[in-house]
């Protein structure tokens, strides 16, 4: 999909032939992951060259204004790496990302400080997302309302229950102004009543955003929330199409993998790949 309507729709993100290679310490390589432990005195030079892990091998696609795109794939398929590249947080080994505006990861945790009060954290989180102080003042009441923290907003955030903290983080995060939103996995959002409210708020926020990327390994989430899905496997796009069909194929494949029916799974993977190229 995509091409048919391209003439009248504005491209929002263009990803061209992204490759990411990590060099890791040989003994800490895990399948398909580019992380290393980073502790102790393991030497880069003295213990050999380490192993090369390919997190992405040639990913290309174009998304358009108003599109919500699910990126599905198993752990280690390169989803999160792709998301960080689209956000411009990491540099690809080769390839390019173009976008109509600076994409932003939805999430504000890294900027918050547990010692500070909820209110101070709201300010800090918003400033970290690039809002001006005047904008922070404007969105503040809204954030307080969405988070439903009440008087506790004056207490240090470390005193919050995990549900309260999650609510506040979510409320701050959706205040982002970015037109291209990148969401990693389902948002953990406290209790059930809030879940409804947060989903409503998220939907409302997404409708204002130009383009939404949702990364998850759960096919069902993509079916519910996205119009289009991109299935990643081992750093490559297996399938890129309407969310329902793509997610269905992915789920059937993933089910077979989980059941240990690897020959069936491999066949499905090959089938999906060949269907994509025709």
């Amino acid at each position, binding site marked *: 999909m995509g091409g048919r309507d391209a003439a009248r729709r504005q491209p929002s993100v263009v990803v*061209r032939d992204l490759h990411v290679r990590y060099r890791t310490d040989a003994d800490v390589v895990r399948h398909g992951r580019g992380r290393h432990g980073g502790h102790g005195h393991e030497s880069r030079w003295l213990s050999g060259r380490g192993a090369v892990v390919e997190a992405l091998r040639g990913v*290309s696609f*174009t998304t358009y204004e108003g599109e919500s795109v699910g990126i599905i794939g198993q752990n280690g398929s390169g989803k999160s790496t792709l998301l960080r590249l689209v956000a411009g*947080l*990491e540099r690809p080994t080769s390839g390019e*990302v173009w976008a109509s505006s*600076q994409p932003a990861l939805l999430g504000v945790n890294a900027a918050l400080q547990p*010692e500070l009060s909820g209110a101070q954290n709201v300010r800090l989180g918003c400033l970290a997302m690039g809002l001006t102080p005047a904008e922070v003042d404007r969105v503040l009441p809204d954030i307080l309302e969405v988070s439903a923290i009440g008087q506790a907003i004056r207490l240090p955030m470390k005193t919050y229950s995990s549900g309260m903290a999650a609510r506040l983080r979510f409320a701050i995060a959706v205040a982002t102004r970015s037109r291209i939103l990148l969401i990693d996995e389902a948002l953990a959002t406290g209790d059930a009543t809030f879940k409804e409210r947060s989903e409503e708020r998220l939907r409302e926020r997404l409708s204002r955003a130009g383009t939404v990327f949702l990364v998850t390994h759960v096919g069902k989430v993509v079916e519910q929330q996205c119009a289009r899905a991109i299935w990643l496997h081992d750093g490559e796009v297996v399938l890129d199409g309407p969310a329902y069909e793509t997610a269905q194929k992915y789920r059937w494949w993933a089910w077979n993998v989980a059941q240990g029916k690897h020959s069936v799974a491999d066949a499905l993977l090959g089938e999906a790949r060949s269907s994509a190229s025709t």
Partner: protein
Amino acid sequence: MSFTPSDTSSPSSDAALEGPAGETSLDSMRTDESLGHLRRIGQRPSLGVYTVQLWHRRHYIWADSKARSRSGHRGMFLGSAWLVLKPLLDGAIYALIFGFLFNTNRGIANFPSYVIIGTFLFHATSNCLNGGASSITSGANMIRAFAFPRAALPLSVVTRGVVSMGPMLATMIALILIIPPHAQVTWRWLLFPLVLMLQMLLNTGLSLITARLTFQVPDFRLILGVIIRILFYGSGVFYSIDRFVHHPWLQFLMESNPLFIVLDMSRDVLLYDRTPALSSWLLLTERSLLILLIGYVFFWWKEEDYGRP
């Protein structure tokens, strides 16, 4: 094909667009002029744009620095008092060791205050060197979550230093006034903020340099400890260079060390009621600006890489 007016990038871009979804949209892209509104993501901006982005980041840097310098000592029994106590203890120890045991005070008037100014101001710089070195590692979560000019990380280390400088300077001033022979407040004290400002520029440049070096070569952190020690002994924190250094080359090296100039000028202004020579002002300004500029460009050069896991 023209991707954007400014697109001068890879010749391989045609091949790059052959993907499951890319293939169909490729043709339309070639003709669609509206693609001109796209810009490259994750690419290092020009120095000018970078500086503007950094300027927009100032609100966050300031808020974050204020919060962190306050919470830095939380959980300790004496809390923020350590902002004052730490340099106080250091000063006392150096005055004791070098004043009484080694007699490096020969020929120095008001030696205790001489050492106090030395240690307090030296620590402001060494903190920035160390803080800059760990800024990329300790900011890894921020780097992986937000797109912002990465120089904001070492800069917020310096800002944090500035924020905690208030109580530190107050202590320093109080000490040199209290300890006999008491320093006299003169109009020349008004020159002290100027010296501090130049030192701040110097600190900023240095922290940008150590930030990139430690990022690229983690081993540098250990070397930095040695460098700081050399700097400590080479800046005349606790002795007078005129008295102890006679080798002309060594003397020249030490006297062109900007940190030595900072200490020297600060003592002139605060203790000895002397206006520092114009040559000192010019030399310090030149060195500080040069190091700041070099540090800034040096750090910016690797901007795209700091997100590397």
